[in-house]
């Protein structure tokens, strides 16, 4: 038996300060609402992972923050500016890895592409760019059109990091990277965050690849946020409960809206519930369930549970 309902997770992260906020953000493509009243809050200095299935609106959101896509309703604030009005100023403070893995101009060499980027960013750190290039084993003489998907991604990461922007927008940054390079990328990002005061927004549907870096999570589905919260809060309040229950057991009514995922056999349940651990355990026990085990979920497992619920609801 598997039954899922949508849990009411928190959306409001408090009063900030925030590097990025959106309120009621709407963007349609024809009859499809890619962003459907989105309220995003990314705290300054956070590593915020935006989780969602394909088509959830992650890339549209990131391109909107870059000032590349116009929005129809709502407000957007990135580094204190509206990208629709001051797109150039906003982009000056952003390191961007787009969903499209093609880096630069096909006919340009990687070395020339790095020089090109340096002209546009007065804060370009040439020595840092050289070090990153060396770590990623990128040949500066290669033309961009000869790069593989993974090599292009590495070049894009160098372009995004080397001007040490206050905000990184990384759209599927590990897409196309093999395990070794992916680990190297996480290591580079960790060192970068240690060296520079940077807010990071990572969009991905493979959270496990970036999980070690993440401290805030936003779960996006069908253009809406199902929840956004600090990782420690997710870790402490979204828990999986294993319990033995009597035949025909239906569960306590007071938990209804907070149950993210139900599964298990007839007399053994496995519920994912949002809420205070003691209160949920007490509620289950009072309803006749014998709770055997309670465990936190990884960000990836939490995202899967939340998104499964959304898709089924």
């Amino acid at each position, binding site marked *: 038996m598997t039954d899922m309902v949508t849990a009411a997770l928190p959306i409001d992260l408090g009063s900030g300060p925030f590097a990025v906020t959106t309120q009621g953000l709407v963007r349609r493509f024809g009859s499809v609402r890619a962003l459907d009243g989105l309220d995003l809050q990314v705290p300054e200095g956070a590593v915020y992972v935006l989780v969602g299935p394909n088509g959830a609106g992650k890339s549209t959101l990131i391109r909107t923050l*870059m000032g590349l896509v116009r929005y129809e309703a709502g407000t957007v604030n990135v580094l204190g500016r509206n990208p629709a009005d001051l797109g*150039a100023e906003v982009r000056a403070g952003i390191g961007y890895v787009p969903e*499209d893995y093609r880096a630069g101009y096909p*006919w*340009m060499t990687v070395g020339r592409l790095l020089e090109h980027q340096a002209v*546009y960013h*007065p*804060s370009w750190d040439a020595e840092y760019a050289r070090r990153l290039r060396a770590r990623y084993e990128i040949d500066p003489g290669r033309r961009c059109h000869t790069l593989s998907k993974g090599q292009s991604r590495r070049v894009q990461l160098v372009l995004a990091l080397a001007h040490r922007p206050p905000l990184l927008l990384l759209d599927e940054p590990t897409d196309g990277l093999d395990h070794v390079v992916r680990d190297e990328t996480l290591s580079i990002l960790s060192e970068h965050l240690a060296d520079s*005061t940077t807010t990071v927004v990572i969009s991905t549907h493979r959270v496990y690849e970036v999980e070690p870096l993440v401290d805030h999570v936003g779960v996006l589905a069908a253009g809406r946020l199902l929840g956004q919260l600090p990782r420690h809060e997710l870790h402490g309040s979204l828990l999986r409960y294993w319990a033995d229950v009597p035949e025909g057991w239906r569960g306590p009514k007071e938990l209804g809206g907070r149950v993210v995922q139900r599964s298990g056999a007839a007399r053994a349940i496995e519920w994912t519930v949002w809420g205070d651990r003691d209160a949920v355990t007490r509620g289950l026990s009072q309803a006749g369930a014998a709770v055997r085990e309670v465990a936190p979920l990884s960000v990836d497992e939490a995202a899967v549970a939340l998104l499964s619920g959304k898709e089924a609801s």
Partner: protein
Amino acid sequence: MTDSTVGRMPAMKDVWIEQLCVVGLAIRREGALAALALALGSLALVAFARIPVLQAIVDEGDVGEFVFNPGEPPWGFFAVLAALLLPLAVWKGERRFGDTPLWSLPVDHRRHALLKVAAGWVWLMAILGTALVWVTLTVLASGGVLGVDEVRLLIIDPAGAAAGTPGATESVSWTTPWWEWATPFTSATAAYLVASTLMLATARPLFWAAGLWVAGAVVLGVGEVWEIGWIERNIELVAWYVGGDSFNRGVQLPTGWTEGWTLLPTMKLWTALSAIWIGVGLVGVLGASRRPRNQ
């Protein structure tokens, strides 16, 4: 943040210079091919004009005098053709309606697009100037002459000219005016701006260019079939402006066929057509540059 340059915008002067460099790199292959073709053509011209063995191959040794007048066909047409094709090279590799590379950089999209178009135009002028100097030197080296100095038969009344009516034709002394040396530059500028408009405004510029070409041919056909005078006159003006064979044609006189001119272009005509077509191109580019790069 400790570095005060973080998040700072680039200087427009630096962006302009970079766009000049990037466009130069983008068009270098096409430029090299054009230079090679020009060099081979020049070599052939000088060789056939100067080497007796080769002279004998052509026209039984009568090579004739090579006359170079940049204001007359086919030179202006070559310049316009180059200008129409150049934007394809200028925007090579650019996702004009995507995210990168140009649009994700910290410059206003409209301004960035216009800077790129302007950089392409600077290169176009440099290429045309170099080609003009090169052809001029080649013509001089092959013993040819620059410009024409001749008497032209102006047809005032075609029917009267055929009937031999006095006053239907007029002989006019014609020397290549200075401004004809500038016509390839102005017509190429207009053509470049119109082609750049298509690049900036449409996702499929070649499709639209073909559509415009067909529409022009239909208008021309309608004008000729129904003998609509204003259409024929305007088509003639456009044809002249883009370096085509336009105002001169064979006319039947009582003494036989000869070459006559329906109109001798003037500086006023060149200025007016330049103002109109460059104006149209500028309005087009300015308007197209406002189009959102990503819907």
